[in-house]
């Protein structure tokens, strides 16, 4: 499915379940998303992470609603499953779509200004560098006699400075590679939204509407 439409669908459904209260629909969404992720052959580690990390906020919400809330245990379960529905819906997008494809479709089909599409893409490609950079900043600070912790403003100041510097260099590099804001470009890979994409988008969205309408528990 077209990554842009997929993102739109995921966001629309996530928004909807924030305002509706159906335990069963939440569970259906989790199961269907989970099934979809399984078919796409995602690594086991990522899968276990998806199940493990949301446990903390989910249990937190569940316990506080169950023990201190006024709406009872049913609502607590809704909150619990809602967290997982968010996470798995999000994962159907993040784990199975390429960010490059998303940028291409946003530029070509959704008429997003190309500077956003490629700016975001370039920033995304810098992400692995940010982790390395933080470690280097910490070690280098130690060598200058300063211990920076994750709450130290200097660490963030330095990381932000690095990113400003990077973004300046990147902007210069993109310009020297012929990129000019708001100018026409050709496209080597044309990404079109196909009839099939629309079929899935509308079909799945309608399904969720139907489920939410008929299943109120």
């Amino acid at each position, binding site marked *: 499915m077209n990554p842009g439409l997929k993102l739109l669908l995921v966001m629309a459904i996530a928004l909807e379940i924030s305002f509706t209260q159906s335990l069963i629909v939440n569970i259906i969404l989790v199961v269907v998303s989970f099934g979809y992720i399984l078919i796409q052959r995602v690594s086991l580690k990522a899968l276990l992470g998806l199940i493990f990390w949301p446990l903390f906020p989910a249990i937190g919400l569940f316990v506080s609603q169950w023990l201190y809330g006024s709406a009872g245990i049913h609502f607590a379960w809704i909150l619990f499953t809602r967290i997982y529905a968010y996470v798995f819906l999000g994962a159907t997008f993040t784990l199975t779509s390429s960010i490059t494809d998303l940028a291409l479709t946003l530029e070509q089909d959704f008429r997003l200004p190309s500077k956003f599409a490629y700016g975001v893409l370039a920033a995304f490609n810098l992400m692995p560098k940010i982790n390395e950079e933080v470690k280097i900043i910490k070690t280098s600070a130690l*060598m*200058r006699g300063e211990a920076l912790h994750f709450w130290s403003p200097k660490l963030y100041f330095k990381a932000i400075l690095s990113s400003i510097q990077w973004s300046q260099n990147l902007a210069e590099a993109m310009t020297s590679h012929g990129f000019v804001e708001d100018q026409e470009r050709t496209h080597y890979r044309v990404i079109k939204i196909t009839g099939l994409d629309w079929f899935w988008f509308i079909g799945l969205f309608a399904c969720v509407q139907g489920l939410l309408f008929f299943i109120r528990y």
Partner: protein
Amino acid sequence: MTDVSINHFTYEYPKSNVKVLNDVDITFKHNHFSLLTGPSGSGKSTLLYFIAGLYPHFIGNDALGGIKFGDTDINQIPRNQVSHSVAMMFQNPNQQFAMDTVIHEMTFVLENMLVDPAKMDDIINHALAFCGIDKLRSRIINTLSGGEKQRVALACIVAMDPPVIVLDEPFASIDPDSRLDLIKKLKLLQQDHDKTIILADHDLNDYQGVIDEFYYLDPDSHRISLLDSQSAQHFFDNFKTTQTINKRIAIPTDDAPAIININDFKLQPHHSLLLKLNQFKFYQGKTTLITGANGIGKSTLFNALTKLLPYDGSIEYDGKNIQKIRPLPYAKNVTLLFQDAENQFLNITVKEELDLSLQNRTNQAYSTDDVQAMLQKLNMAGRDEQVVYSLSEGQKKKLQIIEMLIMNPPVLLLDEPFKGLDYRSLEVVVGFLRRAKESFNQTQIIISHQLSGLDTLIDYHANFADQNLTYQEVIK
């Protein structure tokens, strides 16, 4: 014909009245290979950024005078046409790509230039083949070595096919083989493809017989002059005499006191073995030079020594396993001078940076007068309020060296400390390092491709090759 003519060009940085370029009036001739040289920080990059059309857009204030491509003033060229006239290769290989893979970057470039998608495959294949990097086509750019990244940068330029190519110290951090290869490719572009090449470099290796014109930017007058062949020859000869270490270097004896002991050591990041040592020692109060081709793992060894990277086996500092020493005390004892000077900076202005070192140092080896004298000798005095990130690469390096010397750690690891420094500054820095060793008994381990001028500093030489590190008498 695309002569690049610079007409009475004068530029000063915003909020400063020091002229970086003063009434520069020269013409880089069409279809010539022009080399622009001069000390670091003298303004070579600034001029190139203007020629490439990046300044004034990215710097804020314009220069006086003009730049013309043939008869066309650069300001008359629409912004979306600039890259059809000129392309630029940057000094830092890491920050010139927007996309993830080589092929994506190249299509990105061609899309920007409104090339018909049907023709892209041919253009890309040709550019990759020309640069000899067909195999890198689908690789992720972040995983390439510096030399490979610069080859990709050249491939992008070949694909763009502009008449003028400017290069800003493009070989500053790549190995000698890549450097020679890239210079040959540039010559080929000039001769067979009619390109005008303008290249700034302070390292004159491999250019003799290749370049057509030799320009020198005088750091005092901030003017550029075209040298005749005799003066150019003089520069080359001068440079050559300073490019080798002719002295035989001693092999350390067994009874010399060691400060770092490496045992049963294996370094294999990403599961590829870089270095395997049964036993190796670095000696106390000595300067050890590590040589070896780029990308072979020298910097990675430093990362292991500073606990930035995991390794197998043991490293002992002063008889104690470094994993058992807490991070802060260890970092104060075994300190790395990062290859990228910016990594070392924690504050904003030059003064704040120096004050931080003065405040956190563990000993008082250098007086404030010493510090002032050091700044003076490296032309860094009077820059107290300047933002460190606005310094030139050479100036950043000088500041970094001074602030790490002030910390005066017992062991100082230096990763390409002379990168971006002109020869005169290098000699000054070598003097500082000798003082640190002779007066304060500092142990120094240096990775450097730049060998000239180091003979009075180096005590031992370790060669890194074939996943091994061995002490050698001769430096080749």
